């Protein structure tokens, strides 16, 4: 390998007769004057001077080329490989043309490939195309993780990629971008596994119900699960919001998360929500006020003049009092508030609290919060503000020298579909708190891991704060544009984005000062959704059929005369709800599958 052609202090071409270059490979240019320079392959080309590009030059005759091969000459071996190499650090003057080029040993490029101490790093995968260099590294670094490619699992042969946890203090937030099927979810899973390995407290919002870490992969060489390192909570079932502790701001945020509030509603809430309100007292007040407003003052007065039970009387007095107190609030506003509140209540949000989440975080576990996306938005507004405030209060207190508050650890907040939580150009309940954490979280040791398939839809202030970006395959031009704008990714790499294989990613981090091409390791655990819907339907069908077969066996043969009774008995035995028509159809299916026999007789079909 040697440097050829016109060189610059930043960029050179390297040619080789027998070695094909791979993109992102590191090479050592042995410049006789400037010493060894390290460069990275950004483009790799091969060409054959006997097979020109022009059409009609007569060389495309495959028969002739094949004949030559039989004579012992393979035209493809006369190939020349050329790589465009960018120097990692600019040279003082252009590289000497003709100087020899070779592959580096690990020690020569250690600083470019490994940052920080190994124990403090998240082992995310391997650095692509570093096999030869990896062969020269110390044994402790070899084969650290398992890789998955084309249906095979193998120990990595490349240099491992570590993301230094200590560097989070400097570069706190991570963005994970990539379209569906790009390996983004795997990437997120690997990051979270590493978080758990380091027992770093973390909170994860999981709208897809897929962040389950208790099942280890079937086909991996070393089984590992995180049963004890994470806890899963469903909103409304395990955790919720304690209404009593809601500040007015929290309540506003919650209600507006269901559906945006009008100005009138917001001011109505300000008037209606009293300190020390429980859900019951607040919702009662709303319901009564609605009733009062619907009746109107004259009818309330009139009702009060009538003779009635004392209880009844009490109620009307209360209605009148409310009318007097809140005379300026329009009925639609109150109704609007009431249905929002009811929706929150029905989700079970107000029947639990967030103690369990905090507990898990205090123990250095990963707390996975699951719920439908709208509820998750509502809830996480409350949850994130709450935990963030607690951490902030503790840290501020410490700074002021007041060892007052209860200890709350630094933590990571992670979510998929981040563009739903901090969307660009529109409001979302969670946007404020996420923006705040993005801007200030570093100070308090609160870090974000935001994954999205649409970086373009993510709020720009947030995107700008994501220092480290893991970019998987992206096809949309607008997203590629956003990525190019927001990262130090080079044009050559941006061009490759639509073609990245699943699991391959570009790692753009200020720590490395360049984009590193990595392949994410095979996760230890698997998502619960891995069953193919097609398999699911088939399995379900099989089991119901088998069940039916079992239950009709005692009634065979079934024919027209005993059909009705058979239906009745089968329904009783199985708890199913067959009609004559549906059972017949089901039996016909069984016949089709050969599990049952059917005979046609003058008296109708007989199932045997």
């Amino acid at each position: 390998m040697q440097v050829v052609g016109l060189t610059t202090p930043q960029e050179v071409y390297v040619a080789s007769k027998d070695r094909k270059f791979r993109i992102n490979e590191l090479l050592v240019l042995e410049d006789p004057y400037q010493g060894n320079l390290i460069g990275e392959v950004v483009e790799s080309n091969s060409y054959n001077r006997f097979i020109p590009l022009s059409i009609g030059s007569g060389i495309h005759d495959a028969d002739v080329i094949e004949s030559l091969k039989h004579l012992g000459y393979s035209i493809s071996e006369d190939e020349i490989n050329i790589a465009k190499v960018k120097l990692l650090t600019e040279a003082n003057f252009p590289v000497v043309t003709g100087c020899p080029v070779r592959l580096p040993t690990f020690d020569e490029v250690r600083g470019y490939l490994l940052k920080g101490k190994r124990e403090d790093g998240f082992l995310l995968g391997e650095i692509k195309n570093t096999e030869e260099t990896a062969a020269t590294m110390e044994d402790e670094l070899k084969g650290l993780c398992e890789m998955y490619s084309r249906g095979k699992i193998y120990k990595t042969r490349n240099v491992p990629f570590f993301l230094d946890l200590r560097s989070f203090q400097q570069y706190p937030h991570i963005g994970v971008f990539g379209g569906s099927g790009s390996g983004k979810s795997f990437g997120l899973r690997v990051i979270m596994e590493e978080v758990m390995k380091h027992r770093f407290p973390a909170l994860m919002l999981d709208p897809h119900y897929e962040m389950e870490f208790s099942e280890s992969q079937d086909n991996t060489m070393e089984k590992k699960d995180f049963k004890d390192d994470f806890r899963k909570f469903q909103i409304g079932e395990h955790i919720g919001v304690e209404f009593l502790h809601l500040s007015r701001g929290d309540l506003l945020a919650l209600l507006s998360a269901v559906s945006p509030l009008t100005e009138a509603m917001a001011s109505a809430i300000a008037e209606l929500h009293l300190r020390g309100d429980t859900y019951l007292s607040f919702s009662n007040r709303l319901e009564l006020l609605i009733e009062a407003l619907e009746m109107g003052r004259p009818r309330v007065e009139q009702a009060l003049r009538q003779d009635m039970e004392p209880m009844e009387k009490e109620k009307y007095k209360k209605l009148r009092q409310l009318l007097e107190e809140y005379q300026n609030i329009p009925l639609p506003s109150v109704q609007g508030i009431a249905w929002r509140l009811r929706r929150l209540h029905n989700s079970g949000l107000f029947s639990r609290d967030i103690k369990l989440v905090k507990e898990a975080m205090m123990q250095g576990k990963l707390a996975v919060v699951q719920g439908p996306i709208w509820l998750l938005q509502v809830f996480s507004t409350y949850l994130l503000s709450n935990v963030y405030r607690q951490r902030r209060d503790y840290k501020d207190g410490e700074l002021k020298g007041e060892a007052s508050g209860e200890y709350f650890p630094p933590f990571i907040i992670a979510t998929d579909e981040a563009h739903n939580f901090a969307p660009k150009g529109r409001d979302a309940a969670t946007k404020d708190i996420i923006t705040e954490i993005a801007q200030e979280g570093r100070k308090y040791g609160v870090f974000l891991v935001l994954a999205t398939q649409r970086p373009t839809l993510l709020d720009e202030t947030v995107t700008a704060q994501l220092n480290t970006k893991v970019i998987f395959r992206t096809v949309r031009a607008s997203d590629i544009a956003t990525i190019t704008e927001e990262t130090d990714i080079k044009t050559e790499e941006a061009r490759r984005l639509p073609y990245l294989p699943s699991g391959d990613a570009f790692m753009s981090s200020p720590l490395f000062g360049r984009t590193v091409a990595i392949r994410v390791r095979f996760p230890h655990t698997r998502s619960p959704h891995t069953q193919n819907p097609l398999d699911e339907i088939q399995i379900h069908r099989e089991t119901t059929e088998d069940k039916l077969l079992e239950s009709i066996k005692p009634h065979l043969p079934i024919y027209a005369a005993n059909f009705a009774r058979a239906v009745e008995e089968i329904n009783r035995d199985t708890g199913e709800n067959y009609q004559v028509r549906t059972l017949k159809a089901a039996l016909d299916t069984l016949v089709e599958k050969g599990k049952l026999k059917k005979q046609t007789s003058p008296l109708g079909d007989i199932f045997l």
Partner: protein
Amino acid sequence: MLELNMDLKNKFEEAAKAMQLRLRQKPSTQVLRNMILEKGIGSFNQCERLNYQELSNIVEKGGIVGVDGSTNNTGGPYPYLLTLQQALAKVCNQEKGHVTITDAFSPLTMIASMGEEEYREFVKENLACLEVKAAIAAFEQYSPRVILLDGSLVRYKIEAAPLWEKLKNRALSQNTILVGIVEGISTGVISECLKDRLPKSGYPASDWEILFGLLQVGEMLEIAPGLFKEGFRTCFLRSSVDPKPIGIDLPEEQQVYLTEVANLVFTLTPRDGRGIPLWLDIIDKNVRISDTIMEGLLSTYMGEEYVEFLKPKRQKREM
């Protein structure tokens, strides 16, 4: 647009008309074919592409060697110039490698002084010598079945007689077939034989002119023995869609192989190409000394000042 001189235009038109007339009066291909057959000039045969088994047989017997040479001059007008020559013999089997023989000289520094014409002749002969030397070296190293030489074999016999005899004798003794591939046919044997039957304007004609478009793709005209090129057997072959045929020479002693060789040449020639076996094109590319290389060599080994000294005024012309 510049106004063209009227007189120039007329003269040119006249010449072009005469040329057109000559082409129009050329007998039709069928007539020509019949004439050729009737006069016993040769016979038409269709070539076959060899199959892989047949190719493998050739490889087993030693494979194929291709030989080509290249000359390039640099510097100024005679005798202020440097000539660089290179001949390459390359065997199809890549592992075996190749033989390169080079030479460089200048009329100024040669012992015997000679005129420009003489020098040009010398250069030509020297190249033929280099090519034959390369062929002999390749023959000794690889003992191939076939040696393809770029150009007529007659040329070697005339320009490098002693070496050629040596090569021929060895080849004959070891049954290595020597083949000359002629890209630019310059003989006029056919028109000479058909002299009395061709229209006046169409005589004398080069062989390629008579054969232009006459042969089908893969068809060859085997010239009857003894008709021309003493000591050689020749055939013309349309080896690709290009209507201009190529010539194939064999030593007379090896004429039994003529069909086999024609088939081989046809097999190795891209159908849509210009009609030269790909193998020779590859060697040509390898052996050619480009102007860039010449310039590079000159400025490296001679120094910029001398290059300036040699550079002819003509090259400094700017319009």
